[in-house]
């Protein structure tokens, strides 16, 4: 059996949960690979997940040029997704992004880690809101 062929059950359940939410939500696995975002997120991102596919989450977020509310570049280690991935803790932040349509938007992002059996870290969920 190749374990790489199977997403952890917690991620499968998280995807099912996210697919029924109207809140934009994305999921990354424990290695920091974007594995899913929902329809609500597609509307904000401007691209279907099927077009994006799985990719490193840093590459994905960099496309949106994240900046502080003062329009300064937002260091990766301050981004909620990175905090959840690296620090295994919840994080929330408001910042600016530029969507694929070229429009600057303020978003608030909450990201939290997912732990399965015996504190086994299996990935993160990030939800975001347009301000």
């Amino acid at each position, binding site marked *: *059996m190749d*374990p790489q*062929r199977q997403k*952890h059950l917690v991620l499968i359940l998280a*995807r099912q949960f996210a697919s029924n939410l109207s809140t934009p939500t994305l999921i990354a696995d424990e290695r920091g690979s974007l594995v899913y975002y929902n329809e609500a997120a597609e509307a904000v991102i401007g691209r279907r997940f099927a077009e994006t596919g799985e990719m490193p989450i840093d590459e994905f977020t960099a496309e949106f040029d994240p900046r502080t509310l003062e329009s300064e570049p937002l260091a990766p280690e301050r981004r909620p997704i990175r905090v959840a991935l690296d620090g295994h803790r919840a994080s929330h932040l408001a910042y600016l992004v530029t969507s694929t349509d070229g429009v600057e938007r303020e978003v608030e992002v909450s990201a939290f880690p997912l*732990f399965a059996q*015996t504190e086994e870290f299996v990935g993160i969920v990030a939800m975001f809101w347009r301000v």
Partner: protein
Amino acid sequence: MSLRLKIWGCRGSLPAPGNDTVAFGGNTSCVEVLLGRDDEALVLDAGTGIRALGLDLVRRGTRRIHLFLTHLHLDHLEGLRFFAPIWDEDVVIDIWGPRSPVSGLRDRILRSFSPPLFPLDFRDVPARVTFHDLPAKPWRHEGVTLASELVLHPGPTLGFRLEAGGSTVAYVPDHEPALTGIEGRSIDWVSGGAIAAGADVLMHDAQYLEDEYDAKVGWGHSSVADAVSFCCAVDAKRLVLFHHEPERSDRALELLEIRARELMPADRTPPVLAREGMELEVGP
């Protein structure tokens, strides 16, 4: 080397003894992986079917038992207390099964081994029992490899993948993959996908007919249609319909098998019903 298995119980949820269930049996889940020797036994699940197996193991003089539990719902555990070898101080038993996110297998099982659910305490058990939490690295023994993966069913639940000499059997008796989707998704997003991928034999939950399932979504079991869809999605070669609804008589089960065969594409092997006493030999 081939894999040989014997089914000691394949009923789901609750034992169903009686004249209407003699052909397919009324005992709950228990499958023996036949190792070709009498001193050791490899067993999957401890439903009521394990009681008769236990008596057989005593007759064979088996002293070393490896028991793998998919989960701890009673229909997969209640036979353990009446498993004769556990009451023999000369027997060594390793029990493998899922821990919960907050407690280990041992603590979880001990709850069912104490009052008011049972008159005796686990401390009264004379056999030398060791508990092992799953999932863990694949277990390898005597040419058999057993891998486990969490699958979709209420509470921590495992599916097992057995491999030996190029033969593969997937054992997923309690599973509702349709809840998160089967068709139209890549296999890595299908619950149980890796456990069952390309298996020679897939023993899978098929508790409900399609119209019954509509009222039982989220209960953790599959319709016969979803069992067939899952089998096709993972490209398993042969489907053995398992975890029979306790209300279903032998005749009603035969109708379910007919339905499964209607649903299975014509170029695939027709599904069969699991039956108590059935032996399966899976060659390379």
